[in-house]
């Protein structure tokens, strides 16, 4: 079953701040939704075990995630290979950063991939919305984590940059 999703988040912080954050697996790994276990191998790789429930199919997926930053474009590609519950997940997600002003960044993201096994077959009718929710949640979590980091720093410096927030 083929998946394709895209969206946009407005993030507090400059492009440089956001890019530094998303290029580190230690930061991105904890943003994985429904996380059960996380093993960060290095700055570019982490393994995560997540809970998944799609219709009648419930269980855990083991994800192998690699981060491939493109410094000059301020963009990041994530390859995600997952297995578990007799199912397979192969996703490629990317996030491209552009400045909206000096202290805020627009993060355009998209994800393409496929799901096979009972997740696709038994849970097929429900999978599309559920997968979209999970992937969106990754980027929402990234946004929130960056916002917390940036605004904590800013409040320590006595400035407030939390003018953004939502996304689509």
């Amino acid at each position, binding site marked *: 079953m083929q998946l394709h999703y895209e969206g946009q988040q407005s993030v507090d912080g400059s492009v440089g701040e956001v890019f530094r954050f998303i290029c580190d697996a230690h930061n991105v790994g904890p943003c994985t939704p429904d996380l059960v276990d996380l093993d960060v191998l290095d700055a570019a790789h982490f393994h995560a075990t997540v809970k998944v429930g799609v219709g009648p199919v419930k269980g855990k997926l083991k994800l192998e995630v690699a981060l491939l930053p493109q410094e000059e474009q301020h963009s990041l590609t994530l390859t995600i290979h997952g297995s578990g519950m007799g199912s397979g997940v192969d996703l490629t997600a990317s996030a491209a950063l552009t400045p909206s002003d000096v202290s805020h960044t627009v993060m355009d993201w998209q994800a393409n991939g496929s799901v096979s096994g009972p997740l696709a077959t038994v849970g097929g*009718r429900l999978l599309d919305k559920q997968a979209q929710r999970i992937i969106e949640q990754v980027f929402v979590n990234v946004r929130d984590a960056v916002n917390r980091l940036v605004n904590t720093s800013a409040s320590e410096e006595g400035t407030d940059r939390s003018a953004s927030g939502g996304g689509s």
Partner: protein
Amino acid sequence: MAIAEEPTGHVMGHAMKRKEDPRFITGQGRYLDDIVLPRMLYMAIVHSPYAHARIKSIDASAALQLPGVHLVLTGADLDQMGLGWMPTMAGDREMTLAVGKVLYQYQEVAVVLAESRALAEDAAQLVEVEYEPLPVIVDPFESMKPDAPVLREDREQKDNHVFHWEVGDRTATEQLLRSCDVVVRQKVRFQRIHPAPLEPCGCIADFNKATGRLTLYMTSQAPHAHRTVFSMVTGIPEQNIHIISPDVGGGFGNKVPIYPGYVAAIVASLKLGRPVKWVETRTENLTETAFARDYHMEAELGATKDGVVQALKVKTIADHGAFDAAADPSKFPAGLFSICTGSYDFPNAFAEVDAFYTNKTPGGIAYRCSFRVTEASYLIERTMDVLADELGMDPAELRLKNFVPPEKFPYHSALGWTYDSGRYAETLKKALERFDYTKRRQEQDERRRKGELVGIGLSTFTEVVGAGPSQTFDIMGIKMFDSAEIRVHPTGSAIVRAGTRHQGQGHETTWAQIVGEELGLDPQNILVEEGDTDTAPYGLGTYASRSTPTAGAAIAMAARRIREKAQKIAAYLLEVSEEDLEWRDQKFQVRGVPSKAVTMQEIAFAAYTNLPEGMEPGLEATYYYDPPNLTFPNGAYLCQVSIDKGTGEVKVEKFLAVDDCGNVINPMIVEGQIHGGLTEGFAIAFMQEIVYDEDGNHLATNFSDYLVPTAWEAPDWETDRTVTPSPHHPIGAKGVGESPNVGSPAAFVNAVIDALSPLGIRHIDMPLTREKIWRALREHGIEE
């Protein structure tokens, strides 16, 4: 349904209540999963999530660490034992457990043996398999392209072509088509479906290391054939394999092939020396076991301008999935598809089938049909309606004009069959009269004028069943005879054992009725036993409507052998010569002296107590029946539907099935068979399809997605019959179990297309779901 009174005297043709039903309706049946053996282990299967992928590694360490897990077997393990691949009935081979790569989603990759089923299933989840996904082909038309990836790398032939098969005279047919006044062409797909028996497949393999004997409890429609194949595959001497097929909860062809689960369970029991139980889940049954149909057919039918058919040319592309595991007789790779000229007198015909591999579950079994007969029947019955539409002729009139006439029987068809008997026009006329066809056509016109979508559809099919004569029919070399053994006990009761194995067909009753008729015994005192290879004579099993044409004949012939001996005993008891006796009113009477007679009960007692000098004691016989020809049941089905323009919902307003299955043994059982088959035909026409997405994901893995009609959805069925006995069958019977599944899909679809024909719609492929009809209505300007 009215049930006639219990029989007195002659028992053939009476609606005797089914002897097996009391145990079924009181929950006392003994199905596979009811059997629990001491020290039994349970087997769960690890399935492939991918439709096509290379296996890079399998790590079972986590599963094996669970307390209570005894063994994990992979394809590599079986390969080392020479069991990595197993032969299919179609002459191909298939992986037992995946070796090197997987070729369809849900393919069996490994098995886990544990102390409980739950533990085995949990442990199966812990087996980690690393895959490298490969390009997927789910469409046979993609599979046939020269640049398509080769799916079966194990074959010498480096493309995806399975076989080409053809029959008939291509040149003559094409020449005749060119000279016809009218030629219609129609593409028709018979979608991939699944028999979906309520009881899935399973087995308990119990290998006794001390005796070297394997006892295999198994959901089998063909226990003897399975015993032979298991012996060939495993090397266990055949006398050391004992197959017991307990009560079977529906088969419909699904329990004919040998599946990897059976072989894996046997290997596990051999290795562990403990009984191993494997029972499929519903999803496993729908995804792993054999599918039916999946034929892409195209017909060219030529006729004169006044509607006399001249020539039929058929080209078919068959999707066989990952392996050619079709359950066809060896010499018939496309089954009996050449019955596609149907009930009509075609001077010339030609048919060809090309089969291709795809990344789908293998199969091609005869789901309640005699080997591709349903596909053939659907094609010709649809195409005849297309011709009627082209000619502006009533479809009933067109059929009546083209039926094989009674005087032409035995009829040699253009594609090589010798039809044994039939009175097609009489059967259709009876159906038309009872249906009140003319009046309903008038009402249809009136309702159409009011804007209603109303349609009437016909199907006047001919089946070919009872495989089969040994000169042409075998499975893996084993001739397709069948057998029976009858032992009459001293008190006049009897036991009948047959090589068939019923799965709901009512053999325990009908076999007893045949013996009761032939020997004058009370069917209630006749025990029928099937499904035990240690006791029953060798037979090829129950599928393809073959039981009555073959085993039913064997039973009648065995009974007649007994009667021959009984006549000698009767002569001795009555102190007359054998020639002075006649079998009349179910006893031996001295000709002209009815009061001087002995019953079979009296003869049976004498067979053990008071014999002529020198005669061998006992009263029993065995018969192996090799049918001289197949039988050709037929019927005329009529269906009326209306269609809701707003929702696309089809309502079956009336359905009449008039069958001619020759002499009837038990009309109640025949009617029950027809009701069941019509309900399945209804599901196929309107609800069911095994769908795969472009990645090979199986999208019909449960009964939420693969619909099985209940009494709520099923229409009311009306039945009737004509009786044209088979001239070569000992009791004139033809077989009926599959006729309604064969004949009804075309009747439903023809009715729906008739309803839609005012919109210019000539064909829609099954299943005719509400969505599909709704879209067709919108595409043709209906916006209500």
